[in-house]
């Protein structure tokens, strides 16, 4: 028993992590008070940690130090402008909160133009691909040609699925849209598969923590 206490005192964080992990995993059996307790512990810890980081890494170096240590008093205006956000809770002065919100919305809207162009124009440019592909030595690259053909078929059929502006009466368009739908199903299947992989990774991490870091049964 004494050895156990010594172990707990020598690495309390590991024990706390293990107890929290097991407590949260009790949900697998059914909803219960233990799970609820540890869920709230986690939320509280995450929120508390965020506040500490915000004070230490943002408010201190970007507000307190410049204003009170370096005499750059003009940053106070920026801070006060930001504080106007909190007037959202006041019925009488609610309109003041719209000033910083409007400022940020204007910034985001302007940024969206640049972001759209940089993100999607290169996508459109690389969508135009040759079906007849040659290598540097002049020989025909058949596999690249087939790849480009598959790409083109998928691109056109998936886009035809999203023709919602008019009724799809033509058999060609209808079949194309149907094929596009199947192709998208394959993509969704791939996303679902990777989702499972991600979840399994999370479970493995917790199990590894319990058996390696906590119990030290495996290396």
């Amino acid at each position: 028993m004494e050895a156990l206490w010594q172990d707990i005192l020598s690495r309390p964080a590991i024990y706390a992590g293990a107890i929290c992990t097991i407590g949260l995993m009790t949900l697998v059996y059914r909803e219960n008070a233990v799970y609820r307790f540890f869920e709230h512990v986690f939320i509280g810890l995450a929120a508390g940690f965020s506040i500490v980081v915000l004070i230490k890494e943002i408010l201190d170096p970007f507000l307190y130090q410049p204003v009170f240590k370096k005499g750059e008093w003009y940053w106070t205006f920026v801070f006060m402008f930001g504080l106007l956000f909190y007037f959202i809770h006041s019925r009488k002065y609610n309109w003041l909160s719209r000033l910083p919100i409007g400022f940020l919305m204007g910034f985001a809207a302007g940024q969206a133009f640049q972001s759209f162009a940089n993100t999607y124009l290169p996508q459109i440019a690389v969508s135009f691909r040759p079906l007849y592909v040659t290598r540097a030595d002049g020989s025909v690259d058949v596999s690249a040609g087939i790849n480009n053909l598959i790409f083109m078929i998928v691109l056109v059929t998936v886009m035809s699925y999203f023709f919602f502006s008019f009724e799809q009466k033509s058999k060609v368009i209808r079949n194309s849209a149907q094929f596009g739908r199947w192709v998208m199903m394959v993509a969704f299947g791939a996303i679902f598969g990777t989702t499972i992989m991600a979840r399994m990774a999370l479970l493995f991490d917790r199990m590894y923590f319990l058996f390696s870091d906590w119990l030290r049964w495996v290396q």
Partner: protein
Amino acid sequence: MAMTSPTSQPSDFWHRIQAIDRRVLYVLLLVVIILPLFVPIRLPMVTMPSTQKLYQAIESIPEGGFVIVSATWSGGTRAENMPQTEAILRHLMKRRLRVAVFSFDQQGSQFSYNIASRLAKEYNYEYGKDWVHWGFRPIVGVVMKSLVRDIPGTFTTDRDGKPTKDMEVMKGIRDIKDVDAIVEIAASGIYMDWIGLVVGANPNLKFGFCPTAVMAPETYPYMDSGQIVGIMEGMRGAAEYEQLIRATGLATKGMGSISLAHVLIMLLIIIGNIGYIATRARGR
């Protein structure tokens, strides 16, 4: 498993295999995840082109090059993003590149600092000379717009409040044109912001992305177009990267468990569907 209809008879075998108690499935899952921890299963691993491309991109940076690593993740995705962060930082330090780490997430800032500090000791990386941690930065768009034109002005202090302008690691770094590569390790769609606001500003900039596995498929078009040089996909991608840099980490250890879990899930899907088809066939 597939749902049974209200009129079905629970005693029927084909119905029962469609409605196995979820607690039984959880136990099976735990067994296949835990078993390889005690009996290691080493399956051959083929490196995907996306991982290989990221590795090649880092390899192509000349010694002393400057790389920014953004670790925008938190405890919830530690299983995937932590091995990714470790693999990338290990590769960068092995190659003696200058490294600047920061995060758009409060927890990510702490996690990435812990990992980088540990690896820095291993590779004799001196803080301030070979690497720096810029800490947590909020408001993605503002930081990205700012770092394109003025990196020392954007990151005036490190995570401990020390001025960065005199640090040797920042020598010669003025704007995005002086950066060789940016690697984002994230559990969100932040890669869109990097592509939209930063990547186009320097045609020679290599932008690598390390998402959680669930996000990987949506990023393929951007690798296809060259906007992302390479992708490390979740824990599997991290395991492949560990193999490329010849290091065994958490991801490599986890591959046996993940593979067995996938086999179990596939078996359960097949069993459930057999039950469903058999029930339908008998109903006709």
